């Protein structure tokens, strides 16, 4: 890492130490994030077990098509993020900027589709709280528990969306710096770390998607 333009902060001895430190820091942060979403997913599992009918019913109100589409969008964004990191490793500035923008665009697409879904939920009265207007027509489905599902749904997808927004902001910041040639093959730790974060956010979705969209038999 001789030719790098990386700034060595004075608490570190050399760039290698600095690089391994920030990478480890990111992994430790992601460990925190896993437990953060873990608490939510545990709550979801508990209530899914307690109220299988309502959760299945509520899940069927979600659009599997849009969910699948979003999953594909997000997987593509992970690919382009990986390509961006790859470009950064080789110091290919144009390629780096291109893939960063593609990743951002895919992230924004995901949020837009998600936004449409949320809007539909709002119109259908599935947003919990005073606006919740779903009335059950079958005694097997208790509206309050459908509301519980949607509450978990909104907290989970909302927090995930918030992470996406933060990710897109980070990517925007990186794009500006990358286009000014701030990164090089010896200095791309910020790209690598944001990549780790981005992949993590994708993986969260990979868990949320089946939990929220794919439970029960949709054909039935």
């Amino acid at each position: 890492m001789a030719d790098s333009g990386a700034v060595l902060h004075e608490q570190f001895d050399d760039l290698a130490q600095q690089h391994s430190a920030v990478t480890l820091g990111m992994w430790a942060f992601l460990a925190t994030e896993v437990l953060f979403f873990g608490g939510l997913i545990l709550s979801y599992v508990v209530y899914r077990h307690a109220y299988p009918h309502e959760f299945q019913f509520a899940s069927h109100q979600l659009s599997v098509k849009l969910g699948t589409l979003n999953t594909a969008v997000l997987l593509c964004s992970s690919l382009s993020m990986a390509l961006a990191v790859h470009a950064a490793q080789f110091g290919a500035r144009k390629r780096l900027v291109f893939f960063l923008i593609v990743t951002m665009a895919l992230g924004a697409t995901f949020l837009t589709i998600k936004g449409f879904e949320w809007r539909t939920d709002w119109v259908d009265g599935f947003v919990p709280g005073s606006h919740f207007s779903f009335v059950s027509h079958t005694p097997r489905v208790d509206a309050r528990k459908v509301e519980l599902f949607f509450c978990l749904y909104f907290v989970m997808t909302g927090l995930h969306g918030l992470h996406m927004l933060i990710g897109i902001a980070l990517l925007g910041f990186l794009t500006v710096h990358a286009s000014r040639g701030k990164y090089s093959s010896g200095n791309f730790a910020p790209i690598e770390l944001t990549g780790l974060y981005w992949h993590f956010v994708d993986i969260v979705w990979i868990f949320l998607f089946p939990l929220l969209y794919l439970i029960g038999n949709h054909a039935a």
Partner: protein
Amino acid sequence: MSATTAERVADYPPHPGTFVEEGYSLKSWLLTTDHKRIAILYLLAITFFFFLGGAAAVIFRLELMTPQADLVSNETYNKLFTIHGVIMVWFFLIPSIPAVLGNFLVPLMIGARDLAFPKLNLASWYIYMFSAALTIASIVLGGVDTGWTFYTPYSSMFSNSHVMLAVIGIFINGFSSILTGLNFIVTIHRMRAPGLTWSRLPLFIWSMYATSIVFVLATPVLAITLTMVGIERVFHIGIFDPSIGGDPLLFQHLFWFYSHPAVYIMILPAMGVVSELISCFSRRRPFGYSFIALSSVAIAVLGFLVWGHHLFVSGQSMYGGLVFSLLSYLVAIPSAIKVFNWTATLHRGSIAWDTPMLYALGFIGLFTIGGLTGLLLAALGIDVHVHDTYFVIAHFHYIMVGGAVMAYLGGIHYWWPKMSGKLYPEWWGRFSALIIFVGFNLTFFPQFILGYLGMPRRYHEYPPEFQIYHVMSTAGASILAVGYVLPLCYLLWSLKYGKPAGSNPWQATGLEWQTHSPPKTHNFDVTPVVTDEAYTYVEGKEQFVG
């Protein structure tokens, strides 16, 4: 730990002055990224919170002198014990040793110039202060009456107090813990001085490492749990409210999944401090170094698996109770290993009765009582009787106050010469250590008896037959209060009038003693190189290669 200092020249020229002389303006303190200055900022903040939380305790202890309500109303009483718990847990105990002593010492002890992420370190202090401001605001606006445990559905649906503000405060406080833990993990992994292998690390560093893991893995669960309480409070959705389908026990599971490991956040650093003190003041390597080190990690891991022992009488299934009881017994073993090893270290040592050592010896005794009463609580048959009584209160105060606070004070006295460059008056130090020990026991020992007699916790009024033990406890609390004010006075006095300490007043090993007191901004004039195990004491020499 011995170090040859000439082998390696620092990459940066040594700073001319100590970290204190770096600047005296308010700005130079509030915008500092020096881990030592940030430690001092934390020290000021948590000292304030310690006395604030203590003041709440003094008021409700006075109230409990008599069985009737005479000093404060029931609402005020409930708010007082909530404030006491919230402040002592999140704003004093959890940050005490890690954020003050850990911040100051981790880089010094491993021969680094600073923590891995100095700006993040300052950010954690600001996050801590911001969360503290919110919590203070919730108190000023009228207080919170849920108890520090925030049990639902009381906290989410029934309490009319400022729950939201306090919950947001604690939520934000969590990020301060997480960032501190993250910083320590990375620093300990990546920034050790050349030659400082894991098996040569001071035991304090081992304990900080174990604590940091708990910080990073447990705190986010509290964050998401409190988020759900907040959502339930605002939108009236039954996440935890049984009347609309929620499960209040889920809250308790999630809460204790954080809060039981949080107990180890408080006691593991204390164990680390005590290992340092015992070693220094008997002038020898701790007996069974690797067992003490690994037992810290074992406690951190097992600590995640015992939360259910807070739910023995909650309606959790009987089999759940059995499993958690068994695991709770297992977590006692590594603590016992530590106590035996500390005691064995004293055997044939050269024991100095300096103030920090008095605290350390007091710690072993009180922690042992706290730990053994933990065995009584883990015994299912007994717990059903004493759960939620004063027995539990006494037990965890023996661990938190008899354990964590004693170790914290011992650590502050031990490293005070390093932090301030001054010696405190030794006679006053020993005297107040004795006062605290006596006052503590008089306050909390009667509470064991109260608990077994059946006195429930969080009672504003109580049947008159319990009074005698409450009077003893309150008398003890007043002695304890004096004991805590004394060090505040003479330590401040020593800043101006104390004798210069020199770089190594205790003749201790350890890299932190191989540099100036107070240390310079980048800690060491040259980066030390470690060539031997920790705690190598040798006749007539402080440093030794071999």
